[in-house]
């Protein structure tokens, strides 16, 4: 593995480290709150994995968030908007029907550009856009994560009320005494 690939995979190393840290805390910690926080770290690593896969990097071209500049409707005329269409090609798989149309236009524009001149084509390829879908998926997953954490903490409050402790081994000890 060359240093370039090693550092190129930087995000993935972070994902793996976070995941293992979180998982280790869940397994090893006897304190219920710490377990839940470990679980949180574990989930966060997956969010990062998704966002990483959506993010494009390119040494030459500008890569930016998938935000339409100047609106969709009036964008066909000007050059700067063509970049958007190229970006949409990169996540064509997930484009909605409308986006699909836009992609078709982009293809048409590109072929025109081929006839029209190299300068035009160069400008078209200037800007790339990240895939928004993984980020959107993660919004949902974050909501799920918050719900899980909230529910877990609420349960821990009840456990604390009943047992007077949040250490798992002490709780099991108390249960044994009862039996």
């Amino acid at each position, binding site marked *: 593995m060359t240093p370039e690939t090693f550092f190129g995979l930087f995000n993935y190393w972070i994902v793996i480290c976070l995941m293992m840290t979180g*998982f280790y805390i*869940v397994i090893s910690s006897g304190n*219920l709150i710490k*377990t*839940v926080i470990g*679980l949180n770290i*574990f*989930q966060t690593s*997956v969010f990062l*994995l*998704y966002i990483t*896969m959506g993010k494009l990097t390119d040494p030459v071209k500008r890569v930016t968030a998938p935000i339409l500049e100047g609106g969709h409707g009036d964008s066909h005329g000007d050059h700067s908007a063509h970049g958007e269409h190229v970006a949409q090609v990169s*996540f064509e*798989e*997930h*484009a*909605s*029907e409308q986006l*699909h149309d836009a992609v078709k236009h982009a293809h048409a524009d590109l072929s025109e550009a081929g006839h029209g001149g190299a300068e035009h084509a160069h400008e078209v390829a200037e800007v790339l856009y990240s895939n928004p879908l*993984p980020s959107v*998926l993660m919004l*949902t*997953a974050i909501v*799920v994560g918050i*719900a*899980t954490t909230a*529910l*877990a903490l609420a*349960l*821990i409050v*009840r*456990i604390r009320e*009943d*047992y007077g402790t949040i250490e798992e081994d002490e*709780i099991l000890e108390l*249960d044994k005494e009862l039996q």
Partner: protein
Amino acid sequence: MIEQLIQFLDVVSKSPHLPVLLIAIPLVAAPLLILIGNRKLVQILSLIVAWVVFGISVAMLGRVLATGAFEYQLGGWPSPYGIVYRVDHFNAFVMLFVSALGALVLTYSPPSVAAEIPRSKHYLFYPSYLLCMTGLLGMCVTGDLFNVFVFLEISSLSSYALISLGKTRRAPLASLQYLILGTIGATFFLLGIGLLYQITGTLNMADIAEKLAASDAKRAELVAFAFMTVGLFIKMAVFPLHTWLPNAYTYAPSVVTTFIAATSTKVSVYAFVRMVYTIYTPKFAFETLPLDRAMVVLALIGIFVASIAAIYQTNVKRLLAYSSVAQIGYMLLGIGLATEAGVAAGVVHMFNHAFIKGGLFMVVGCFALRIGSVRLEDWRGAASVMPMTCFAWAVGGLGLIGVPMTAGFVSKWMLLTATMDAGNLTVAMLMLISSLLAVVYVWKVVEAIYFSEPSEKVKAAKEAPLTMLIPTYVVIGATVVFGCWTVYSAEIAQLAAKALLNASGVVQ
């Protein structure tokens, strides 16, 4: 009036929107019911919602049987761009028994809920129950992989909340333990979905299947498969990932245990079958990977360890919980065979076991209500005061063992013949021996309730109320009906298995 009603039902059952109504009705009803907040009204409305959902499931199964699989595109976006709900023989069948048990258990619930859950929490209990049902049905109906994760979490989160409603102080702890393991499982599943998305760039199951067949990212495919399998194995409570299940089932309120035991693990089995047979191919799972051998070993160890553990339990809820772990093993055995007969046996066992275990837990709920305990020593001699309830246990128990004329026999017979056909005599023998273990733990309870001197608590008890006995007998009766007449159980399972294997790899 009646004519108009029939006409109305006819129009509704032909509506193309049924798949989304199945999810939308209970999902929207749940928060509305919390806003209503009136205990009695919430109870009645949730009951209506549950039966409407059952009606929709029946209509969808009817349509699938008449015209074959159909799709619903959410918001009109065509697949693979939008989310689609896809109904075929397999998931229509699973949704049918999930919604049937959901409605029946809810019908049975009022006296038991009144006794076991504080009055102030009732208006929250019913919406959580509906949400749990929504999640389980959503996992079945959707054709979008990320949607499966979301619905998995909806059903899991609501079941954690439901379990924590148990009376003892052990309930929140059991719920938290389930939450931790369940979240790890769900996160593994999410990780697998992420890797699949990275390979294929799509979340539509049929589309993923197509793209996977063409892809050459073999290692990423393997990793995604491994994460998703382990994640689902936790939710299915496959030995040795079953540790959350006995505590959760034991300390949850009886109604919650009944519903979750009857449906939740089966829906995870459904998701697993979908993953192996629709998204991946059985060839990938069982030839490239030796998952079938692993499954047979885990299933058999699970069956024996859990059945033996069940024999030593004195808490009947825990006894049945261990028996559930064992029964999951039988489903895995069938699914792992990768033959039409094997998959059909696994699928029909999901159906039959849902009714058998649902019925038995309903009986436990009746005892818990009248005797106030689920410990076997308190149940001694119960037959003298609660003959109807005890008879239901005896019939359900026979089903669990797999005695002829009961549903348990149908699925075990199919499984046995499928295993023999596959030439695996050792496994077939071990299955037969393991059924004897079921005889021991079922008989242990029968002996206590029929042939022992009544305990103090039993002497003070009386027969369970009819509102509970009737749904119990409907479910227990179903186990006998589907033991003799298998048009709507085994035959649909066979159609489902055939469709799955024909499509294996590519849907449509």
